[in-house]
């Protein structure tokens, strides 16, 4: 048997028959063990697994049927034969019922014995092979089931919605993200689903399913599932093929792109605003140039000079705006170009006031400083801190009254360095205060007429302060003045 010696057990109380059978089988190349009674037979037959057992029916101690039962109970694949001289139809039936493979009537010829044993061994080989296959299949199935449940767990846990539709438009598989993104409350496997899907998706799927031929190309569409951009999805529909190349169905992968859309909207709005802000000064300069070229206009020298000067002012404003935009864009990239160093704020203040000296003198503004002695240093980018003070102080000059005052106070409180800049200018109306830090907002009223600015100064201030995890407060009374208080954490990294 496959080059392996078959082990045979002989249980028989008749010594002659035992030895005779043993010798016959050993001559055939089998390895044989013998038991001289039922008890010994059970002990041997259960302690190790024999390929074949020949069990005498009538033994003085234990009946052969019981020996058979015990052995089969432990080793169901041992092929057992009941051997007896008292052959009867009933015992044969009974023995087979209990689990004997065959029945060997005494006396038997050597040929009969060997033929039966060979049959038994073949049977055992078949049984063992069948069992091996069964185990293999079970192992495969287990692995498959595990693989399936693992895939299932993965698909259920991902953020993308997954919906698989078979070739007749029924649900083959879905995960809950798909329900959420498609705004469908319930789906059953095998139910027709196309009518429940957004039209754009069902159109794509119908198109794929109805075509004679298909390519494995993904078709993508974006859909606003809930109005006002509350839920926007992107659905990617891909045909799936059977192993034979025919169409199996369509897999739809659904991503939530709501946040992306919101960012896109903000970006587009910002670009629109920037474009508008850039066009306005250009329109003003172009307008002046058009007047110079207009044949119907009769401009006095005085008016000409006035228009030219105003054009220069607008172009200067445009340059400032471009610079501010570049600053904001640099801040968006941030940290990369930042040079963090130890900064003494009082030194930055002195430098900034010197830089603004001309503007201060022109408007007759006086500065009152109240700087706490022995101020702690801060770690920051000198350019940014300088920009912060420049923007706030130049606003305090621009929006101040003639011969007004700017009070600068620098103090510490717990872990913050507090910079307070108060002007005696036109102040803010409450509704203006709320919009102060938004891009391009400029207070427009009878008192701000003629004050130029990009509308980005305070946006930049706010961004700098935020980037250092600081805070900014505004206190203002319309007609009296505005106070900005900046708090920057000390010992920031």
């Amino acid at each position, binding site marked *: 048997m496959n080059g392996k010696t078959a082990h045979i057990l002989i249980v028989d109380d008749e010594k002659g028959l035992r030895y005779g059978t043993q010798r016959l089988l050993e001559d055939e190349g089998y390895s044989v063990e013998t038991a001289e009674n039922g008890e010994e037979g059970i002990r041997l037959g259960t302690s190790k697994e024999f390929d074949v057992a020949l069990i005498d029916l009538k033994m003085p101690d234990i009946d052969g049927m019981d020996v058979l039962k015990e052995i089969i109970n432990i080793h169901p694949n041992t092929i057992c034969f009941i051997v007896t001289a008292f052959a009867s139809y009933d015992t044969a039936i009974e023995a087979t019922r209990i689990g004997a493979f065959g029945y060997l009537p005494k006396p038997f010829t050597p040929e009969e014995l060997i033929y039966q044993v060979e049959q038994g061994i073949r049977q055992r080989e078949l049984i063992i092979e069948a069992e091996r296959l069964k185990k293999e299949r079970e192992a495969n199935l287990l692995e498959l089931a595990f693989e399936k449940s693992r895939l299932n767990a993965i698909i259920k846990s991902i953020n993308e919605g997954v919906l698989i539709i078979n070739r007749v438009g029924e649900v083959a598989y879905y995960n809950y993200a798909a329900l959420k993104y498609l705004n469908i409350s319930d789906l059953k496997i095998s139910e027709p689903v196309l009518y429940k899907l957004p039209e754009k998706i069902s159109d794509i799927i119908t198109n794929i399913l109805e075509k004679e031929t298909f390519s494995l190309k993904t078709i993508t569409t974006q859909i606003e599932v809930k109005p006002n951009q509350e839920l926007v999805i992107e659905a990617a529909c891909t045909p799936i093929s059977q192993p034979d190349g025919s169409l199996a169905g369509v897999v739809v992968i659904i991503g939530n792109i709501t946040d992306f859309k919101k960012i896109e909207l903000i970006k*587009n*709005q910002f*670009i*629109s605003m920037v*474009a*508008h802000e850039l*066009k*306005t000064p250009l*329109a*003003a300069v*172009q*307008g*002046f140039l*058009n*007047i110079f070229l*207009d044949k*119907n*206009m*009769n401009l006095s020298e005085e008016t000409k000079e006035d228009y030219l000067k*105003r054009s220069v002012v*607008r172009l200067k404003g445009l340059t400032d705006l471009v610079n501010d935009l570049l600053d904001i864009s640099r801040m968006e990239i941030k940290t990369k170009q930042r040079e963090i160093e130890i900064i003494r704020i009082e030194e930055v203040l002195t430098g900034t006031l010197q830089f603004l000296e001309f503007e201060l003198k022109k408007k007759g503004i006086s500065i009152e400083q109240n700087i706490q002695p022995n101020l702690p240093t801060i770690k920051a980018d000198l350019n940014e801190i300088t920009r912060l003070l420049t923007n706030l102080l130049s606003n305090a000059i621009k929006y101040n009254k003639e011969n007004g005052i700017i009070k600068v106070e620098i103090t510490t409180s717990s872990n913050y360095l507090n910079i307070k800049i108060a002007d005696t200018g036109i102040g803010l109306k409450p509704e203006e205060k709320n919009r102060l830090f938004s891009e391009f907002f400029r207070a*427009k*009223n*009878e008192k701000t*007429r*003629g004050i130029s600015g990009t509308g980005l100064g305070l946006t930049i201030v706010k961004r700098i302060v935020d980037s250092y995890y600081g805070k900014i407060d505004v206190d203002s009374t319309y007609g009296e003045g505005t106070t900005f208080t900046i708090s920057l954490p000390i010992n920031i990294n």
Partner: protein
Amino acid sequence: MIQEKFKKILLVDDDIDLLDQNKALLISRGFAVVTAESGEEGWKMFQSENPDAAILDLIMEQMDAGFVLSHRIKKTEHGKKIPVFILTSATYDTGFKFSASTAEEREWIKCDGVLNKPVVVEELISKLENFAGITK
């Protein structure tokens, strides 16, 4: 002569440069001009001056100050009779989508046309002529 039909034109713009330019151009073409620098001031000027046409900047103290003012003007008996134009650089190319080119849009916007900055005085005059043709 168009200048006879629209003797006095109200210009409202918070950009003093554009206001002065358009004023100078219109005066050079024989119109009389009254000006205002905000929506609120423009409303007062409209009521006190009874202009024959109004040209309103769109973005002033508020993003839609020009629309607000044109709505107020078009609600009055006098306002219904005169052409009101919105003046702006915020058009299709900058992402703000309106043109007042259809009746439906004009119903919403309540103005008779949109003019791009910087305004070309000939274009304005031809718009006034068109308007006069329609109402004749």
